[in-house]
């Protein structure tokens, strides 16, 4: 159920026990069907588990939407080297707050998903890389992990199967870029969290140079249900290309912000107007960011027919990302918000690539100049050119993430920029 509000349109699978303190305990979780998926998986062969996840069509919930079963199948089958499963709990994309809810309300669901994943890819060691700021949520997870060890669910002999699965909770130390998968690996190894050049891909050489799979918290949290109930069951919801349900984190100018679990393909307009109770103060909608700060902004017109599936949001001109829906009403100063996002990226750029290190700072400076009323029409051209040069030219896509809001806002909210430019002439 959604937290802190629920809605009749929801399909509660991974969020079923949000707001239910008893579900956090091992006993409480088992009473609710917990660890049935893991026990079932242990009866199956690892290959069979991977096939099942492939059939379910589950796509990665960390942003890129890569098919999870396929990712797992890339892991070498007969290598003698240790394998690793990493869980990405570094949630820090502005607008995204779903993994924290999964950590604090359903820690055993994640542990179970991790254990199934580790079994499927032949890993004996799992690291959950938790965002450092999540002191409170991390304590909940830590306690659940300790309980799982004590009950023999983790450790030398998982559920008496003879399988060894170790899990370590690793806390980060504050750096957005450590959410990028190879940045996370470097950070976990005790290095600066700088993304690595790919290839080699993690399945070939990941953590400590060994075969590694990395998945988001929400992805792994869906696994126990898919394994317990089957891929056809999961495909009852969503679309052909985006099966299942997804947590939508809605923030900004809506009456009931929060997380809602909805089938993929749900209409964006209905999410805002029905599920979230509409825009605050009866104001008109101005813009929506459908997938976290790294994706293009949609204008109110584009929102009209947008369906919230991976393909649907792409058709509407943006990306689903991690389904972090940021709603902006007519009172919003779009340029100011774009500047706030670009200054975030300037702060978080790891500095390895020149277009990103320099570009993020320059974009922010130009936007600040425009906001101060000192901008010119030429600045808009510069912004477009600069962000073009920042796209597809760097080690990771943080650089591209700045281009998305800047270019889309200039395209759809040009008047907002032009008002600032005119204002500047009057003042200047």
């Amino acid at each position, binding site marked *: 159920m959604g937290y802190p509000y629920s809605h009749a349109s929801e399909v509660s699978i991974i969020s079923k026990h949000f707001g239910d303190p008893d579900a956090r305990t091992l006993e409480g979780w088992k009473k609710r069907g917990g660890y049935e998926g893991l026990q079932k998986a242990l009866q199956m062969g690892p290959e069979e588990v991977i096939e099942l996840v492939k059939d379910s069509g589950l796509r990665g919930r960390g942003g890129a939407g890569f098919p999870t079963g396929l990712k797992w199948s890339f892991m070498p089958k007969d290598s003698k080297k240790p394998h690793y499963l990493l869980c990405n709990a570094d949630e820090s994309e*502005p607008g995204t707050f779903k993994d924290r809810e999964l950590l604090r309300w359903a820690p055993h669901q994640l542990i179970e998903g991790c254990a199934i994943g580790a079994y499927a890819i032949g890993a004996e060691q799992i690291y959950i890389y938790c965002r450092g700021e999540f002191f409170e949520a991390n304590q909940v997870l830590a*306690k659940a992990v300790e309980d799982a060890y004590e009950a023999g669910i983790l450790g030398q002999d998982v559920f008496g199967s003879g399988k060894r699965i170790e899990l370590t909770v690793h806390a980060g*130390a504050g750096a957005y870029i450590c959410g990028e998968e190879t940045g996370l690996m470097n950070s976990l190894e005790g290095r600066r969290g700088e993304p690595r050049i790919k290839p080699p891909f993690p399945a070939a050489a990941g953590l400590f140079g060994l075969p590694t799979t990395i998945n988001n918290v929400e992805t792994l949290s869906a696994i126990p249900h898919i394994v317990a109930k089957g891929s056809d069951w999961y495909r009852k919801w969503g679309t052909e290309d985006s099966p299942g349900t997804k947590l939508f*984190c809605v923030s900004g100018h809506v009456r009931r912000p929060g997380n809602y679990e909805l089938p993929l393909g749900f209409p964006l307009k209905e999410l805002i107007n029905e599920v979230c109770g509409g825009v605050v103060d009866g104001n008109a909608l101005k813009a929506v960011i459908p997938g976290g700060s790294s994706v293009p902004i949609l204008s109110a017109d584009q929102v009209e027919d947008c369906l919230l599936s991976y393909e649907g949001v792409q058709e509407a001109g943006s990306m689903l990302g991690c389904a972090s829906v940021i709603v902006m009403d007519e009172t919003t100063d779009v340029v100011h918000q774009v500047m706030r996002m670009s200054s975030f990226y300037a702060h978080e750029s790891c500095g390895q690539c020149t277009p990103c290190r320099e570009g993020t700072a320059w974009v922010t400076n130009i936007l600040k100049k425009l906001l101060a009323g000192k901008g010119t029409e030429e600045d808009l051209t510069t912004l477009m050119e600069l962000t073009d040069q920042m796209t597809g030219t760097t080690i990771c896509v943080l650089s591209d993430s700045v281009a998305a809001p800047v270019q889309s806002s200039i395209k759809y909210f040009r008047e907002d920029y032009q008002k600032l430019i005119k204002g500047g002439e009057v003042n200047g």
Partner: protein
Amino acid sequence: MKAPKFNPGWAGNIGEYELTEAEIRGEDFVGERPLEGGHPSASATYPYMLETKDPKAKLFEGAYLERFEKIVTRYPEMRAALLPTLSLAQEVRGYVSPQTMDEVAELLELSSAYVRGVATFYTMYNKSPVGKYLIQVCTNISCNLCGAEDVLRTFLEETGTELGEISGDGCFSVVEAECLAGCGFPTCVQINSKYFENVIAEDVPEILATLRNEQSTDPRKKSLKE
């Protein structure tokens, strides 16, 4: 935007749910997690932004030494224990000085220059001392849309500090934070190890008064609901 009615101890809007502050924060479930004992798998997860700091504390002794030794066992290389070890050092000392970085380097058999390079990459390591309460106000987009800049300004005014400085009584440091992943609960403010959510500018004086007056280690006994 008005603060939601039910917001126990600023732990966040509970909407349709009946929950106490302890339940929202998970304290009812976690209970006391003593520094000693406990499984090594989770040794790196304790709260390390304590009110009492001892910049001269030894690295490490007692329960902290035990935890350090457990952390090291969880990785195939000593280097990988670097972040958790720096966090542990900050937990006891309150910040990570160059001297602390050198000591951590020695513990993990790394070079000082290397540890400095890594430590400076991460924002959670305080490079200089901070007040008893480190107040981090998110001003990123979702909170920004709901008045975060007012909240930040009010925290600065009410504590009489400049961004990043320690207040005269040593009680507060206020900094601007990037998205804290509490976007549905704007404005999200992290004070030491705890999140304060749905904070509006009008709440700030009361929050600061609570922090100032609180004798116990838990600054938020008081609930808005009362």
